[in-house]
């Protein structure tokens, strides 16, 4: 399951960030921002049009991610914190 399939306000644990092609700078930046294995994430808000962007809580911080960015983030199966 990826982050875009995660229901609103349901905590989950990050498994990994998937690279889209070589030198995926977006994937690298996501990891730098804390989307790494074992980190708890939660979707706290969605944009007014087409549920984009997603507002994602990771660590102590909130990031607005577009759906294509969030789709790179794979979650651990069934493991809610």
């Amino acid at each position, binding site marked *: 399951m990826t982050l875009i399939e995660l229901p609103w306000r349901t905590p989950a644990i990050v498994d990994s960030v998937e690279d*889209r092609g070589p030198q995926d*700078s*977006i994937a*690298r*930046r*996501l*990891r*730098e*921002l*804390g989307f*790494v294995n074992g*980190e*708890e994430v939660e979707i*706290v*808000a*969605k*944009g*007014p*049009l*087409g549920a*984009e*962007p997603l*507002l994602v*809580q990771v*660590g*102590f*911080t*909130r*990031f*607005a*991610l*577009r759906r*294509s*960015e969030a789709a790179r983030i794979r979650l651990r199966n069934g493991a809610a914190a």
Partner: protein
Amino acid sequence: MSAADASTLRLALVGNPNCGKTALFNQLTGSRQKVANYAGVTVERKEGRLHSVASGRSYAVLDLPGAYSLHAASLDEAVTRDVCRGFYPGETAPDVLVCVVDATNLRLHLRFALEVRELGKPMILAVNMMDAAQRRGIAIDLAALERELGVPVVETVAVRHGGARALVETIDAMAAQPHEPRARLAEGADLHAETRRLLALAVAMPTRTAKVDDALDRWLLHPVFGLVALIVVMFLIFQAVYAWATPLMDLIEAGTGAVGEWVGGALPEGPLNSLLVDGIIAGVGGVIVFLPQILILFAFILALEESGYLPRAAFLLDRMMASAGLSGRSFIPLLSSFACAIPGIMATRSIQDPRDRLATILVAPLMTCSARLPVYALLIGAFVPQKQIGVFNQQGLVLFGLYAAGILSALLVSWVMKKWRRDKSEHPLLLELPSYRIPHPRDLLIGLWERAMIFLKRVGGIILALTVLLWVLLSFPAAPADAVGPAIDYSFAGRIGHAMAVFFAPLGFNWQICIALIPGMAAREVAVSSLATVYALSAADDDAAAQALTPLISDGWSLATALSLLVWYIYAPMCISTLATIKRETNSWKQMGYATLYLFALAYAASLVTYQVARALGAG
């Protein structure tokens, strides 16, 4: 690089965006700041001086752009990386790095601090916003952090008087005995794992988020209430810009009028008198009059930015702006462009994606800047009757329509650019929504002061020079003794105006308008004072010259001409300062050429259509 002598220790403040670094910089350096650009790029370079009362030492402090990582993803981050490493051409490497972290956001910020520590330079960790952390019940064991990190760790409260005292003491100690970090990670170690270890060891956090943030975000990011709130905020800002600024603007106008009269009376009649009164005082005064509006708009933008609301607005608008080929991040620069496109274009530096940044730069001039307002005000006042339509004022509606036309054109232009772009790869958003904060008055004042200075320097330089030049063009050569008709017909400007009028005739512009377009290139607002000068100098007798401009043009111009000129100013490509800024920011003559060409083409086409349609409908 700077005036600092070799013995002055150089400090650099580094940290994530939103760590309160700039507030700390303001606290350390007060008003002893110098704002410029880094050589070769337009990333803002802020340097200040810190004087330690305790040790009597003086330091040069550099406020580096915020960065999430030393693997740079934007121009700002690349500057921070290179300066920290001492690679930036023309910059002396800093002696001590002061890494600033937000005490309430250590999971993110400590990772970056570790990255900075791995550079192996003398470093101090400033744990900022300790007051906010205490309010949230966050307990941080600074001694444990210091031990594990191997660098001095101090707490700071950048927004409280004396909140940086411990930091200054630590800087003094470091200056007396600089040392590299006493701990280092193994090559290739996982910074996230180390961050978690430090957090487990030294930080106790009752909740991951602040209750205030949760509550505010629930409403302000709500799909319906959030958008309503955004519209209300925007509406209030524009109301304030127009309502609050009026008394101040009247005061400035009265002031320049009085100065002009006094100078005019004190000097004998002649060219010098005319240059000072008609040229310099009237010209510069006509521009300074917009300072209140610009400052009020910027006060709001700064307050919204400091409070953390602007990224929320970007969140709400991202999808809409993305479908037009922009990004939510474009919102802040475009909002600033309503004051003036120059700070707006400069604000695009926070947009990481180069394509989004370029698109934003190219459409920023379409936002109705305050310099266009006098032109609109003059024409609407002269041609649109004061009439109530329901609850709305007809003049207000026309003004709103002009603003809306600018915004719609911007969306259209960026959409076309998106369609044309060959590189269709993904544009990231990745925008942090920081905690809400109450802005500190000192930071707002320093920010406003910087804007006012940028604006006044512009007035002092380009605008002053062009006002004088225009006066010369209008006044020389003098008409021959046997001249028939007004003297201005014989001047350089008169001849240029008549020549241009051929090209602009299909748009309904007469030669007086054409002359006013030329100085309008320096700054659009000058067009109004130029029209006044042109009509004053071309009047057959003094009575006509003394008349206000409004009745002159409402008698002299057709409605079609007025509408055509209004539409022209929606696009108005002729603002040299904006074009110069585009050149500087994109570092490309080509992009500047594109901007000039497309704005000019749009302006000409739209005015042509407006004039011809209006004439066909009987407004000619």
